[in-house]
């Protein structure tokens, strides 16, 4: 039985939410979290650290590689197996290409599916690296493995432009376990069998939900995996229900209240929903200045009841305009145009 730890899409070197006050901290947090995961290998006496791609956000610099290399050296005799993802792909001048890794580190650099045999673990790790940022080949489809020992696949991708695959393909190939990277939301595609690592930390403000790394045990008898969440940062959506009775000040107060009980690691998207008085301007700017708010979204509908307006203003330009806009396809653009038009018409009526 072997013990492994799996983490992908660490995106070292990335500064998330560039321009925000927490950007620098997040960059450091990402590195810190990665160090923690590597240290975890030693603590748990794991045999294997699997990194299925995108360890770096861009082409790694030499000193960056030296940094992680020395980290990896620390966990010997545990093996570290990694591949290059679409972000840190093997550029012709990439330092990956001839970096002298320590003995316990194995990078599967082939563009075709290759393997590395780890005799001490009686395990073969399969995988390949990206040589360009996009690669739509179905690279993981293959005939069934018949060789003895444990077989692990390190894969990166899952969408059309990045090594697409289906769980059936992976299953049929006969891997004992497949560790994937690329999609940032962690999840077990096939329980205890095919696991999308998910980003170690959210890298983009749209990476909602928990993030972290996986640990597991693998033997011919099967595999068991477990998710460990890392709580340095979590993006969450906060809906602020607005009613036509609320003024700008009240809406802001409501927002503050909703954000008061947040976990310290939360960074919020504030989404205004419901109906607002058409005269009231949402406190977008003020709410944007609240702490740890990364995005503001106005999903409120101005409190126009179009059906009622049509009835009240029968035979007028207003009715005509509403009808015209409603006959158009349902799109955000038309919806907004309807609102602007109605607002302007009503404004232009002398009362």
């Amino acid at each position, binding site marked *: 039985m072997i013990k492994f730890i799996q983490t992908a899409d660490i995106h070292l070197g990335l500064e998330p939410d560039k321009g925000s006050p927490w950007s620098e901290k997040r960059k450091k947090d990402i590195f810190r979290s990665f160090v923690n995961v590597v240290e975890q290998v030693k603590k748990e006496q794991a045999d294997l650290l699997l990194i299925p791609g995108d360890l770096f956000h861009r082409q790694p610099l030499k000193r960056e590689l030296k940094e992680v290399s020395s980290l990896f050296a620390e966990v010997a005799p545990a093996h570290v197996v990694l591949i290059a993802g679409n972000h840190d792909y093997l550029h012709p001048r990439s330092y990956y290409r001839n970096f002298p890794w320590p003995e316990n580190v194995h990078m599967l650099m082939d563009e075709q599916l290759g393997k590395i045999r780890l005799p001490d673990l009686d395990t073969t790790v399969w995988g390949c690296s990206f040589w360009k940022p996009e690669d739509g080949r179905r690279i993981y489809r293959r005939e069934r493995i018949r060789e003895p020992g444990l077989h692990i696949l390190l894969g990166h991708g899952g969408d059309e432009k990045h090594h697409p695959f289906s769980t059936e393909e992976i299953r049929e190939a006969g891997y004992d376990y497949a560790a994937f990277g690329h999609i940032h939301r962690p999840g077990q595609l096939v329980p205890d069998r095919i696991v999308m690592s998910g980003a170690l930390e959210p890298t983009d403000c749209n990476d909602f939900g928990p993030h972290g790394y996986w640990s597991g045990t693998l033997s011919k008898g099967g595999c068991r995996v477990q998710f460990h969440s890392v709580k340095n940062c979590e993006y969450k959506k906060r809906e602020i229900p607005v009613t036509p009775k609320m003024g700008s000040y009240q809406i802001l107060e409501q927002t503050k209240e909703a954000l008061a009980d947040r976990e310290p690691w939360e960074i919020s998207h504030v989404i205004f929903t419901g109906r607002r008085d058409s005269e009231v301007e949402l406190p977008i700017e003020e709410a944007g200045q609240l702490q740890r708010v990364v995005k503001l979204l106005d999903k409120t509908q101005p409190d126009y009841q179009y059906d009622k307006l049509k009835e009240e203003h029968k035979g007028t330009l207003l009715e005509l305009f509403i009808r015209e806009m409603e006959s158009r396809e349902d799109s955000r653009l038309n919806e907004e145009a309807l609102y602007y038009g109605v607002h302007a018409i009503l404004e232009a*009526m002398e009362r």
Partner: protein
Amino acid sequence: MIIKEADIKKFGGLENRKIQFSPGINVIYGENEKGKTTLQQFLKAMLFGMEKKRGKMSASNPYMKYEPWDTPSYFVGSLLFETGGKEFYLERNFYHKENSARLVNTKDLEELSVEQGDLQMLLGGVSAAAYENTFCVFQEQKGPGKDLYEMIRDEKSNFSATGDGSFQLSRALALLGEEQKKTEKKQKELEQEREKKRKELAVKEEMLGEEIRQQQGKLCEKKAEMELWRKNILEKKVVLPERRQSEDTEQESGMLHEKRQWNPLIVAGIVCFLLNHLLRDMLKLPTGVWFLFQCVFALMAVWGIVMTARRKHGEQAERIRKEQARQEENRRKAQAEAGADDARANLQSLKGAAAAIEETLQEKEIQRENIQQQKGEYDQPGTEEKELMQKTEAARLACGILGNLAGGLRDEKDDLLNEQMSSILSCITGGKYDHVLLDEKKGVQNVVRMSSRNPECYSEATMQQIYFAFRMAAGRMLIREEPLPFLLDEAFSGYDEKRLTNVLKWLGGEENQILIFTCRHLEGEILRKEGIAFSEIRL
């Protein structure tokens, strides 16, 4: 609206008269000076008020015309009318110093306020001018006033929305334009910010590019230098072994030379000198000959010795020279070897330097590529910017659609007005004229066989008929909320019987209350003949 009863206390020649009206057609018959026009003016004044005007115009002012001569302050009347299923009592004092009006709901006796616009509201917001130019036809008037054209133009470009106010298209469009500008400005700001970041990165990229170029230059230099040293070493390596070989052969030849140093002359001379003794003894040569031979042989030996000595001396010099040359060569060789070592060392250090440069170069190139990638991320607008762009687009779209719809509506109104005028005129003239249109510049035009003419081109009666059609159609357009009564004072005086019949028939089909003021019995007779219900009022 239906006027039920007029109670005239004092208004022009009319005094203490109560007149009841019916819904539908009322023919008010009266001989000249019976007060038909006065009654019409009274009704209009009751509905819309009447003010004493000052100045030049005051002479033609109805106030002056109908002001009671004897009791100017008793200038009073009242009206009973029904609208929206409710009956109202309206009382006015026209006397300019006590101008007052009272409006009461007769059922619950609720007092309404004329000042506050309650009456105006009951009249559907219609202005006196609009009424006078349409449904209220005065005897002396030919065509409607210029006001009507303006009112129609306004009406066409304004889109009365609720009846409780007028809507100005231009204002709505301006508001949308402002909105567009506002969002566009915000978006431009974001774009500029993005552009700034992009430029910052471009500068970094440029700097890295420059550094890369410098490093490449340095690398080239180092490589050229290396090439030079390499050549140098190569040259020395080729030259040294050759020298050594030629030296070896020289040494060998020197050895051979050493062996052959005995001159044969000396040997021959000495041998012959000794042999000569033997020959003298054996051959018993004469002493003279022997001596001669002996001398020759001695000379040969001496010559040989001299020659040998001379050569030996030369050889010695040569040997010294060669030795010197060899030493020189050795020195040079040692020097060259030392030089080659230096060159090798130099080459080595150059190689190291070049490798270091290459490494920095690679590092910088990777950095540059990362920056290029990062820069590329700023090429496309962010979500916030896109949202603003959409907002701008939405405002623009709304503006366009609103403009188009309004244009369409305007055309529709034009069409409707022309259609109605045409149909009324066609009705009156028995289909002779069936195409009237309102031209923006020329005013009302009667179209016959594709050419349009002014109403003035026709007979007095036809002209009146064209204008009548225009007034009624315009009235329908301007007076929509509340069907106000038609007040027609001798409006058909020029009509022949046929056309009078036609117009009365047309009036019979209208929902409004109709008051026809006339001095003839003809109208009544025709109505009776045509079986159209009407009430007759005699003044």
